[in-house]
């Protein structure tokens, strides 16, 4: 347990149990969370990203749920804004394949080893990532302050 815990801290200011994981250890921790029978987080309920523009980084969150035990956990990981690359968890929770595509499409997070990384809602030739705080669409005047 000590080996697992290194580098993992509690993520403060979340209204449910939450831990912050170094991005490079995400896969290892995720696999353990799913496979350990005492934890058994078999469902990835939600995954998306937050653009902390002032801090120059993105925060990814993964809301997990265990249908066996009924408990929940939120994992978060920071990635730098200029190189937002993170390993895909779609081999652990298949639904991540599409949740990650949404995060790529709208926030521009790049998922390493993703089986099918494509735009999801927007067209393939769309420029930019609309949910980023510095996104400017020339046609959308109401978003320009």
């Amino acid at each position, binding site marked *: 347990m000590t080996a697992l815990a290194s580098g993992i801290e509690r993520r403060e200011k979340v*209204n449910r149990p939450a831990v912050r994981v170094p991005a490079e250890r995400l896969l290892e921790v995720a696999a353990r969370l799913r496979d350990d029978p005492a934890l058994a987080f078999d469902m990835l309920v939600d995954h998306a990203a*937050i653009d902390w523009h002032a801090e120059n980084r993105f925060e990814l*969150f993964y809301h997990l749920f265990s249908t066996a035990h009924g408990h929940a956990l939120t994992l978060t990981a920071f990635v730098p804004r200029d190189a937002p690359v993170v390993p895909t968890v779609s081999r652990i929770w298949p639904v991540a394949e599409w949740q990650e595509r949404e995060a790529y499409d709208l926030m521009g997070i790049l998922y390493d080893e993703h089986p099918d990384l*494509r735009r999801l809602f927007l067209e393939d030739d769309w420029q930019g990532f609309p949910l980023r705080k510095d996104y400017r669409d020339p046609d959308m005047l109401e978003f320009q302050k």
Partner: protein
Amino acid sequence: MTVNVKTLNDIIAPPGAAASALATEEYFVNMGPQHPIAHGSLRLVVRLDGETVREVIPVPGFVHRGIEKMAEHLSWRQLIHLTDRTDYLSALMNNWAVARTIEQAAGLATNDRIETVRTIVAELQRLQSHALWWGVLGMDLGAFTPFLYGFREREVISEIFEDTIGARLTMNYIQPGGLMYDIHPDFAQKTKRVLAYLKPKIDEYGTLLSGNVILQERLRNIGVLPAARAIALGCTGPVLRASGVPCDLRKVEPYGVYASAEFDVPVGSKGDCWDRYCVRIEEMRQSIRIVEQLIDHIPEGPHTTVKFGARIKVPEGIHYGQIETARGILGVTIVAGGKADAPYRLHFRSPNFNNLWAVTELARGWRIADIIAIQSTLDLVVPDIDR
């Protein structure tokens, strides 16, 4: 590094494949985005071998309105008015999910009257949503009459909502700290009359459609979703329960006044289209049961605990809240920046978005006509996928 961003064209027309396209028997057909069985604008690219489905590639996004981006510019109270445009058949439950998350984050208390009314209107809407689903399923599979019956039942419930809320489809009623208006004086009486009318109708559905041999042939053993796959694919709601997982937030982490109501959570055994059909029919009976228990015991009290002009303060942090809509778990992640009167980031975990992808696995190996049965029993509402 192996991050490789693809386009849809790379899949449908991979480079080099054009020369041999005539030699192969596999071909792509578009179902949608405009198609009578697609309940909204959803495009399914289907790779076919003869009539057998080899692969389904959903292409959502035709109803993407950027609701999450818009939300970053709206105050905590204004947010509610976007939620009814996601899953429009669960408008009140969507209102509730956001209102409840804001209430938990801001520490707003409600009272028993508010929670009871919320539970009643949510169950009425679940009933209404399933009635529409049942009618549309019949129409999808070639039986037009159920569609008219489903809308007939929907109509009487819409009238209850219209009296109290003033709207029939895009309803904004539940807001942080309470309800927008108190219930109509006739609410309880009318609801009881409607329930008495609806009860035998659910049994009529059985004689009209459920017992039909064509329907059974088209649903039984089609699109089997085992429990483990349903969980891995993030399915929730009736889809997950039909696979035999008794996961219903109304029981697992009760909200509203569900804890004091008696009801059963129907589960399927196999996870085929027929199980998904039966689970929803039974859920309609359970919704009636819940409303019947509550309708005579609506406590007295004010319909809101927050003054209309009062500013809601949500402390900094990530706030997650979820409720069970007619289609599954609607999760709301609110990231509050502290002082601002609007969310820094808002994310909807919509039940349809996550249920949709089951179609890629369920339809494989079946015929084109089975995609329709599978999609219909997944009960997708497309604006909720695209947001």
